[in-house]
């Protein structure tokens, strides 16, 4: 069972439908017990960093997510769900993130001739082997929609990068915590293969 954290984020339905299409039993919930019982937990998200943290606090999910990470529950953050795992974001100064991983979330550079937000398909480079990308060739395309990007503190946790005016840390893996800046649920066959890999990790 994969549990998708329900905190009024915009893309929950798409993420749920993508897992369902893989034949994976899926539940959308904010019940701590259901989250602890699941084989894997997904934190989706579109929108602003500050609003999302406020909602996670309101639903009492911040300590729950930190506990899930401590228990090494297979955990996948998607898009804003990746950014929330870090300490803070330039998007919402003064707002504390989940702080499960170390790094900064920065505004995409304005002076590099790229349009902000990045909307569209970009190719991935894999600086370190990542379990999410097992069987996926270097240069595979995935779909991004974002104005802020991750610069992880330690490059060894970065499993995928993409070029967009700067080097965007597109995916990270530390223990059983995984995260993607792009949207696997909107990235056609490549995206479904990434989600299938996560399901495989969760089933172990």
């Amino acid at each position, binding site marked *: 069972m994969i549990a998708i954290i329900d905190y009024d984020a*915009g893309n929950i*339905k*798409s993420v749920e*439908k*993508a897992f*369902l*299409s893989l034949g994976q039993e899926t539940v959308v919930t904010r019940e701590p017990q259901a989250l602890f019982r699941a084989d894997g937990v997904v934190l989706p998200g*579109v*929108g*602003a960093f500050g609003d999302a943290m406020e909602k996670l606090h309101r639903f009492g999910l911040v300590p729950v997510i930190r506990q899930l990470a401590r228990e090494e529950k297979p955990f996948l953050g998607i898009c804003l769900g990746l950014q929330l795992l870090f300490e803070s974001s330039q998007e919402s100064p003064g707002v504390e993130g989940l702080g499960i991983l170390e790094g900064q979330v920065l505004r995409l550079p304005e002076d590099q001739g*790229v*349009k*902000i*937000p*990045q*909307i*569209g*398909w*970009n*190719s991935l480079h894999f600086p370190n082997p990542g379990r999410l990308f097992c069987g996926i060739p270097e240069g595979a*395309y995935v*779909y991004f*929609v974002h104005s802020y990007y991750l610069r992880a503190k330690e490059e060894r946790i970065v499993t995928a990068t*993409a*070029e*967009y005016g700067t080097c965007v840390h597109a995916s990270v893996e530390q223990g059983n915590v995984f995260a993607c800046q792009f*949207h696997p*649920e*909107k*990235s*056609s066959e490549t*995206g*479904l293969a990434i989600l299938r890999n996560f399901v495989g990790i969760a089933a172990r």
Partner: protein
Amino acid sequence: MHTKRVIPCLDIKDGRVVKGVQFVNLKDAGEPAQAAQAYDREGADEVVFLDITASADNRSTQLQWVRQVASRLFIPFTVGGGIRTVEDFRLILREGADKIAVNSAAITNPGLISQAADKFGSQCVVVAIDAKKRADGSGWNIYKNGGRVDMGIDAVQWAVQAEKLGAGELLLTSMDCDGTKEGYDLELTKAVTDAVGIPVIASGGAGKPEHFYEALERGGAEAVLAASLFHYKELTIRQVKEYLRQRGISVRL
């Protein structure tokens, strides 16, 4: 490498894909989800659905096919046609659509753009613009109600205003070129892409692979859209993308 997008457009009537050969004679071409999946397999970067009959009366039909598309299509898709309120946005996005295109409603009530952008984020607000050259050739005016009503408003100025209000993307259709297969209106496309910072999807007039190249390279568009050409398989998406790659444009293949 970030890529330029090639986008097929599907016309929907009463929950079915249609394509009017002579506009009045609408042919039934099947289920929206099925047609869109076929485009995904061909390499479409996203899909735009224009519901040509949508109104408050058949909102439930619309929500039904959007739901079906969302459970079977795993690339981004935009829904346009008959969307008038923030509540319409909410209902359609909730079913799994990624973006909403607004045209007439945004002209009548520009506040709709900012309200929707505030509530759901700019990334899901696409402002569709139907533009036609003024008789004196001095520029382009925008039209509403499916190209029937000249609003007497300059297209470039409207594009700039739409961006300021919070549009995340513009879907720019040249009424002069639409259906001609003689190529996109490069002058119009360039005038708009020079004036705004958000991505512009060029639409109207594609007939040959070169036309797509010109709209991206000379028009400055981020994405190119075509309907009939792909629908009647005069060209496949793959053929267009292979051509673009050969000309040095970065595309997803």
